């Protein structure tokens, strides 16, 4: 009859109280696991969004991250094709890579001069096919089809703008944007008066020059890749995008707005202009050799980041020596990701501590009640010859058993509840998203979370029994035997 068997029999002796204690532990365990699984899903979802949009790693001019937004042409990557070729053909790096694609990001002024309005924007030039390939990254097995870029299948001079840009540039009607409030008061009058006003002469000259280049490019490109401009031009509204070129001189491109999209965040909606990379390069570099501001690398797995980054740094020191480049991972480039993960980790820790405290006092209360009820038994055991340590071991064993049963059933129940939630069809709309997504609680497969929750419950159970067990062990034998 070892301590565990004796403990088990003592627990069975007061079934109702043992059951209530186990139930408290199960509820605690389920709460921690479900919330942990929910948080894990948010973190995985957030990571998936960032990795689909900007890859795992980005190669940039070493000063671009700090200074490039003010003058992107001064901090570009020249000969990006060579750099990409080196990355794609490196025998160490290649197996880890899914997509390598250049991007060009810059600030400018978008204007709807026909309506007499303009605003500052942040433009992004991308290769649509590569970006769509990046959208297919799904390391965490999220359900649903990947998003397709709104620029897909559009003409080379097409642009996609945020809802806020469309609203400010008075393009809501033309782009059939729902729920787009019209300005009132003097702004509305100004907008109506300036409608159909001609372009300022200097801007018109710049636009004409860009259009001439566009026509030349169009003549050398197959119609399969570049849809007929004339056909689309009839319906698509136009904006003029003004940006500074390499020498600081202004340049303007006329872009056909294919769509206004909701990016889920007002700041992004108010500033975003997406366009094809060649058009962006032509606007910034004209006939000069064009550059990009970043080379985006999407890896097969997030866990490869450290290895891939180390390899790229080796390449920058050898094959690509002399190129003023630096490599950043998506966490460096998106501090919001780390802040969000840290926030949820803090909330999770806080809730876990609260639940742990509740479990601690519940088990402690059970042990205290058991000790009061069994004081004479404790005295008898001590009189027979059981040492103080044996008494402690007996009560800690009971608590440990409660912990094992509570943690075991807690994990099983959490898996079951998570399964039900995941198949319930419930949806929610996380911050920064437009469309609702399935409510998913990621418990199955999160072995670290499961193991740490189970171990945590066991530790709390043992800790909660420690003090009452110590008290029981220190009872005077005579006093214990006299207890009524």
């Amino acid at each position: 009859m070892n301590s565990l068997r004796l403990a088990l029999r003592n627990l069975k002796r007061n079934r109702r109280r043992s059951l209530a204690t186990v139930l408290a532990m199960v509820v605690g365990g389920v709460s921690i696991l479900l919330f942990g699984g929910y948080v894990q899903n948010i973190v995985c979802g957030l990571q998936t969004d960032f990795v689909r949009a900007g890859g795992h790693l980005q190669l940039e001019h070493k000063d671009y991250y700090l200074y490039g937004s003010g003058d992107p042409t001064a901090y570009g990557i020249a000969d990006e094709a060579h750099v990409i070729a080196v990355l794609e053909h490196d025998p160490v790096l290649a197996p880890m890579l899914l997509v390598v694609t250049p991007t060009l990001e810059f600030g400018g002024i978008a204007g709807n001069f026909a309506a007499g309005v303009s605003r500052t924007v942040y433009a992004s030039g991308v290769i649509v096919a590569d970006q769509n390939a990046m959208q297919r990254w799904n390391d965490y097995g999220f359900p649903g089809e990947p998003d397709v870029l709104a620029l897909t299948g559009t003409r080379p001079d097409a642009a996609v703008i945020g809802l806020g840009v469309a609203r400010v540039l008075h393009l809501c009607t033309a782009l059939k944007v729902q729920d787009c409030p019209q300005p009132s008061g003097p702004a509305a009058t100004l907008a109506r008066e300036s409608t159909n006003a001609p372009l300022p002469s200097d801007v018109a000259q710049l636009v004409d020059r860009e259009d001439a280049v566009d026509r030349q490019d169009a003549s050398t490109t197959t119609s399969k890749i570049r849809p007929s401009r004339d056909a689309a031009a009839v319906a698509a509204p136009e904006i003029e995008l003004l940006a500074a070129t390499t020498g600081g001189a202004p340049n303007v491109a006329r872009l056909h707005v294919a769509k206004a999209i909701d990016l889920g965040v007002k700041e992004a909606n108010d500033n975003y202009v997406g366009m094809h990379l060649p058009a962006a390069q032509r606007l910034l570099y004209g006939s000069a050799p064009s550059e990009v501001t970043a080379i985006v690398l999407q890896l097969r797995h997030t866990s490869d980041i450290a290895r891939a980054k180390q390899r790229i740094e080796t390449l920058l020191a050898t094959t690509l020596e002399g190129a003023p480049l630096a490599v950043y991972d998506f966490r460096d480039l998106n501090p919001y990701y780390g802040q969000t993960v840290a926030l949820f980790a803090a909330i999770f820790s806080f809730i876990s501590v609260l639940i742990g405290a509740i479990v601690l006092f519940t088990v402690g209360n059970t042990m205290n009640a058991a000790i009061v009820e069994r004081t004479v038994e404790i005295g008898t055991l001590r009189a027979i010859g059981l040492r103080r340590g044996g008494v402690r071991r007996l009560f800690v064993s009971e608590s440990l058993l409660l912990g094992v049963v509570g943690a075991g059933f807690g994990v099983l129940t959490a898996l079951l509840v998570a399964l039900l939630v995941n198949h319930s069809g419930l949806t929610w709309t996380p911050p920064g998203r437009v469309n609702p997504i399935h409510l998913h609680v990621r418990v199955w497969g999160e072995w670290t979370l499961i193991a740490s929750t189970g171990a945590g419950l066991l530790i709390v159970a043992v800790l909660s029994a420690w003090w009452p067990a110590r008290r029981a062990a220190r009872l005077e034998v005579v006093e214990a035997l006299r207890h009524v």
Partner: protein
Amino acid sequence: MEAMTLRRVHKTYRLGNVDVPALIDIDLKVRSDCFTVLSGASGSGKTTLLNLIGCIDKPDAGEIDIAGQPVAALSDDALSDFRLRHIGFVFQNFNLLPVLTAYENIEYPLLLTHMPSAARKRRVLELLDAVGLSEHARHWPGQLSGGQRQRVAVARALATAPELVLADEPTANLDSTTGAAIIALMRRMQRDYHVTFVFSSHDPKVLAEADDAVQLQDGRILAGGAR
């Protein structure tokens, strides 16, 4: 040969702000292999004296030797080990562990001594047979009568073959017939196993069975015992 010796033992309890002397200058020797009864009215100090002899309480002054071993200086763990191997207890309320069967209650002290399984089983079955409960080995205490429970308690007290068995009013919760049967059993066991039995009682039938009787009054020995 003495099973135990007490020299100038003194014990006082504090009740509120008042010191109540429970034992005053007790000098006592108890012969080995004898049936010794401590008698006296309630409050005379019988239970206190048994507690001191059983090493579950400590005297304020004086020396106690049990089986030739001075016990005053032993640590708590050493005292536990000493009780396990040298002293058996029979309680007025039987004090069997309710979650253990009769067999397991007798086996429990042997488990604490780490006796090998086969020897342990032999010893438990032998004791069950000796107290006439072989058929009740798998019964829980709640399934046994008062007399049967006390028989299990006697067997448990003898499990580790102690030199000394202490019984505090072992028949107080039994009817007279059952009580007499228990006394007879204890007497037989004392002779068969050559153990010293010391118990408290004011039952004349018990006193009649005793080899030695020690009478206590107000914490002092009035008569009996080797002084």
